[in-house]
């Protein structure tokens, strides 16, 4: 009886340790595809204004556009393998853990157009961007999920 109890206790401890280890290794992130423009309104009815904290961070960057509209948003988890996130039919990101940092790849039409490695602490944001037609820009914003 005592031996069975000890075995059960050890099994419970082991399971708890494995669960906590798995949780610690996972990282919850959020990716947003954002359209930047100088116009106060977006002609796309599906667009909604970007979140206030994201807008504030975008405003601190040296880009000329003043209005930001959210095209799509995806929450995802980064574990041992790379996470592939489709933000549109032409744009995707892949994120893989690289020690304390993240290896981030931006894909356009299925091809890697940028890859970099950097840390993304809570409260910070990584923005990948480029020009779009009509004097606007596309932005992909990556941050920790709340």
């Amino acid at each position, binding site marked *: 009886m005592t031996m069975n109890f000890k075995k059960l206790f050890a099994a419970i401890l082991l399971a708890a340790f494995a669960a906590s280890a798995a949780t610690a290794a996972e990282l919850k992130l959020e990716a947003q595809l954002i359209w930047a423009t100088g116009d106060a309104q977006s002609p796309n009815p599906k667009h909604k204004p970007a979140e206030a904290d994201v807008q504030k961070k975008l405003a*601190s960057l040296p880009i000329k556009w003043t209005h930001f509209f959210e095209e799509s948003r995806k929450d995802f988890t980064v574990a041992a393998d790379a996470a592939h996130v489709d933000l549109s039919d*032409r744009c995707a990101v892949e994120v893989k853990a690289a020690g304390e940092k993240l290896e981030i790849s*931006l894909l356009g039409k299925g091809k890697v157009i940028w890859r970099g490695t950097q840390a993304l602490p809570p409260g910070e*944001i990584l923005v990948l961007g480029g*020009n779009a037609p009509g004097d606007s820009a596309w932005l992909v914003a990556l941050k920790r999920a709340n």
Partner: protein
Amino acid sequence: MTEEQQIKLQAFLDGELAEREARAVASWLAQDAEAAALLGELKHTRAALANFERPIQLPETREFYWSKIEREIQIESAPAPKSRQHGMYAFWRRAFAVAGGFASLAVALLIALSTGRQPRPADAEVALADTGTMTFRNYESGATLVWLSYPAENGVAAGQPATTIQ
């Protein structure tokens, strides 16, 4: 397009080419749509990153500080009067002249550094890993921007005059 051609386009945009070379590039642009498109992207990028650099403003002109240092050097290098060419007095006079020059330089650097330490909304950290990207980091807001200045073939922006970026 080779990397050398891309760099030449950037130099053309910045007005850094000799007149003859600039004419050759202008002629090339008239015939090469890809080059013309890249030039357009570079122009957009430059416009988008307007007011990128925040120059450090010294309280007085650079010439003023350097003129003080130059004066000290001239004093130190001027031939000493015959009656003072020898002896301890001449030695200390030269030593103080040199020390004065260094002190002026140190004061100038301290003033420049203390001016630069005023809170700035952004510290620019630019990395040009290749000619197609530029990185900017705002340490205060915790935002990092990676700007891809490739032409529209980056595959994210649609080629048509779209109102969205899908």
